[in-house]
């Protein structure tokens, strides 16, 4: 069984952290992954930086620009990940836009992911229908889960279609926004989390976008399996560096522990 499925079976309140590979420094990828695992994070999304990240807000975009300046490329990332499985046992997902993957070659990209021990991919601009028609067989051949997004505007029929095609979890975008918004969750988001929960989907859902602290993490995990933090983590990485990771993760979990 894929490490993602296993983790989702074993545990609730999954905390998944996104970071941009190559940021703040080109060679920080492995140290960050190790620090995240040590601090008790359940799952990691490694961002493959792209020049034009349409679905991302300023924080992730700026970290991507810096990572590219630092020299991050697809080949460099795979080189860095070569030995990652010697120390790392939690699920690893690569999140990247489709063009760099297309240029690398989709099959070769999947093969390299499998070799490095990557469990899944999130490719926000590869629509589910194109994936199913053209690439699903390749992903399955290499044992990679592909993870799709849904939003509050996704019609129920499409949510069910995505649920059919998915085999790990559904990435539930918390509200109509790019990454990095920070306003907390109101009645509207809560209503949406509940509405999707009531659909009794095959796949668990993990909430992402707009989760920045213990409070929003708690709200998100009430009606979903877990939550993903990206921009807030990168902001803290910019401020405090790798040594601040443990404290950040504790802060997210804290509220949950007390309650």
């Amino acid at each position, binding site marked *: 069984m894929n490490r993602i499925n296993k983790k989702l079976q074993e545990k609730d309140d999954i905390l998944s952290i996104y970071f941009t590979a190559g940021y703040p420094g080109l060679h920080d990828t492995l140290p960050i992954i190790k620090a995240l695992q040590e601090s008790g994070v359940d799952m990691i999304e490694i961002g493959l930086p*792209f*020049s*034009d990240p*349409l*679905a991302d*807000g*300023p924080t992730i*975009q700026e970290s991507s*620009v810096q990572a*590219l300046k630092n020299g991050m*490329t*697809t*080949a460099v990332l795979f080189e860095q990940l070569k030995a990652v499985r010697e120390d790392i046992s939690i699920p690893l997902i690569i999140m990247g*836009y*489709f*063009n*760099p*993957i*297309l*240029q*690398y070659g989709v099959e070769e990209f999947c093969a390299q992911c499998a070799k490095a021990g990557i469990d899944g991919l999130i490719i*926000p*601009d*590869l*629509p*589910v229908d*194109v994936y199913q028609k053209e690439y699903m067989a390749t992903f399955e051949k290499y044992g990679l889960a592909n993870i*799709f*997004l*849904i*939003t509050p*505007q*996704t*019609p129920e029929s*499409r949510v069910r279609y995505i649920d059919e095609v998915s085999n790990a979890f559904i990435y539930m*975008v918390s509200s*109509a*926004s*790019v990454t990095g*918004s920070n306003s907390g969750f109101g009645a509207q988001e809560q209503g949406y989390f509940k509405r999707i929960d009531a659909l009794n989907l095959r796949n668990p859902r993990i909430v992402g976008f707009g989760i920045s602290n213990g409070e929003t993490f708690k709200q998100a995990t009430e009606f979903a399996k877990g939550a993903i933090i990206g921009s807030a983590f990168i902001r803290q990485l910019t401020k405090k560096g790798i040594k601040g990771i443990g404290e950040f993760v504790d802060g997210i979990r804290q509220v949950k522990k007390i309650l």
Partner: protein
Amino acid sequence: MKYHVDQNGYYGEFGGAYIPEMLYPNVEELRNQYLDITSEASFKEEFESLLRDYVGRPTPLYFAKRLSERYGAKFYLKREDLNHTGAHKVNNTIGQILLAKRLGKQRIIAETGAGQHGVATATVCALMGMQCVVYMGEIDIARQAPNVARMKMLGAEVRPARSGSRTLKDATNEAIRDWINNPVNTHYIIGSAIGPHPYPDMVTRFQSVISEEIQKQLQEKEGRNAPDHIVACIGGGSNAAGAFYHFLDNEQVNIIAVEAAGKGIESGHSAATSALGKKGIIHGCKTLLMQTEDGQITEPYSISAGLDYPGVGPMHAHLYASRRAEFISITDDDAMKAGLELAQLEGIIPAIETAHALAIPEKRPFRKDEIVVINLSGRGDKDLNTYIDHFKL
């Protein structure tokens, strides 16, 4: 059908809709409705009457006598520069605002490079009383100041795009992000024949009035409804798509697409996508685009803000790959010279984008009896500062 969009939104292998799920409902709504809405009698009536009474169509097809004498062929200029707001862009914004109204949208966003599309969008928003936000690269804001002022005067908010190369591609990114953040009440008026399906086809259809009129006008003037050559400049490719549209299936007509070579194709400062690009994905469609080995989109360069885009629309990528069209690129210097020449030969100051197409007679020989139509996509008022700097006027 060979050169038109297919049912899945592709031109050959180019096109499609590679969009984040957040945009799916918006794009799907458009895809489901654009053909139905635009073929309604009431839509057509409103569109045509605005093009006639507000925009000033049909635009003349002008026989450029002195240009023809100098270059030894029969050159006609399709005068899109005489449209209200000074370029072809308004054909598309009129169409899209009528569509947006019928979709019940209250807020309009747009990206702009030269500012022509921004002005054309701000104009139709004023006309319809709709809120308007235009994204524009910081660099373009500086080099197209008159158009920024026009947009503001028309009541639009101009938001600077500060990321990346701070030009058209980045303004487009920002507009797409805005649409993700405002999925229900907002329509995104894309200004060129780019973006996810159905945008390239929708924009092309609104611009196709250009070649429709050329057919009629040539019939009157020359007793034939098609030229030997049709010439247009390509940024994203909307004026070209409109000028080519009704000639695509007539293989007797040679299509000439003109790209911006910038300081030269090999110089590292260019926007000649067909020469420098590879197949990939930009702003939601599969097309030819300038990118690194690693799939990062590169920053193009052209003296003209409207051609400063690292991709071309998928229809043009297909015209290139299938060799239906001839692609020629023109440097900054040659375009500027052609702009000055047209001013002095014909008394018409063209936009610098258009000046690239006007450099073709100098660049490529034609036979004396051949009829060549050049799409004069816009006028040069917005570019006076660039002309002044270049020629020390």
